[in-house]
């Protein structure tokens, strides 16, 4: 249990990027009415930004 939770918290920034930032970015894009090139779905942009940002934060230990 301890190992599972330890592993979970190690990758928490990535999970946070995908689990929270991605839908948040998608919702902001939808609300602002930004027309994305090639008809890309707002959620795809959210997942890309949230996933990359969270992944980098997991590796470097910093969001900023």
């Amino acid at each position, binding site marked *: 249990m301890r190992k599972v*939770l330890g592993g979970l918290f190690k990758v*928490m*920034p990535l*999970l*946070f990027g995908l*689990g*929270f930032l*991605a*839908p*948040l970015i*998608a*919702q*902001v894009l939808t*609300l602002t009415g930004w027309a994305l090139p090639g008809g890309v779905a707002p959620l795809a942009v959210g997942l890309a930004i949230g996933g990359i940002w969270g992944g980098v*934060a*997991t590796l*470097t*230990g*910093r*969001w*900023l």
Partner: protein
Amino acid sequence: MIAVPDVATLRAMDPKALNRLEKDVADQFMGGLAWGSALWGLGNLAVWLSLWPLTIMGILPLWAAFPIATLNVMLCYLPSHEAQHRIYAREGEPLFWLNELVGYLSTIPLVLPYQVARLTHYEHHTHTNDPELDPDIATKSNGPWHLIFKSIVNRQPGAKAGSAYGETLARLGTPEAQAAGLQALAAQLGYLAVLFGMAWTGHALEAALIWWLPRHIGVTYIQFYLSWAPHHPGTGKGRYKDTRAFRSAVGNIGSMGMQFHIIHHLYPRIPLMRTPAAYWALRPILEARGCDLERL
């Protein structure tokens, strides 16, 4: 009210007599039920909880809910802090349930479990400004802007300060501390589950503006006024040196009474709302003792 002589007379007093006088003056401000703080803690939580249905149902716009939620997070710690010191009631007293109710509930917006806060806060009192043992030492900074910068840096995923409370609980090693560690884990997982759940059901903005962002702003505020400002420069050791009185640019209410935090460290059982009066009564004694009272 007990009459306190002038500073010169106090300085010439026998140390034991001075100690007795200080305690007698302080005792006048203890006791009674701190109803104001209890209502503050529970009312504040009720307002914060109401923001969720009000915004989701479209009754309250998010732009209005955001500053209210931020204020709620800023306000939520101190009522629990009173409970941590058993201000409402002690173990065995009829109203101890109220003490624990306020303690457990009021810090929900901050995601700071009561027992974690209580045990680590006692360690802060015991080891104030100790670079190894004070769980709040990470807020030690050169000035206000440095504190804000450090507060943000300390919240990064890899920051050492992020594990300070966990390390303190591990060092304590008691069954109570272990249970508090589990509560911290459950609170963190619960918080993230709510954020993720809200976000994936179309309420990411509500979650961001009622909890996530207000919590970050609130933590910075709390660290500024409740941790950094009263202990700055964070080097003094000992009963009369580790905490100071200071004049806040935003006044006593804006700094939530922390101008008089020195009283709390000397007499933790004086309720928050009586610390200003206790300070003015004790001020000559504190001055005679060489405390840092700045311009207050």
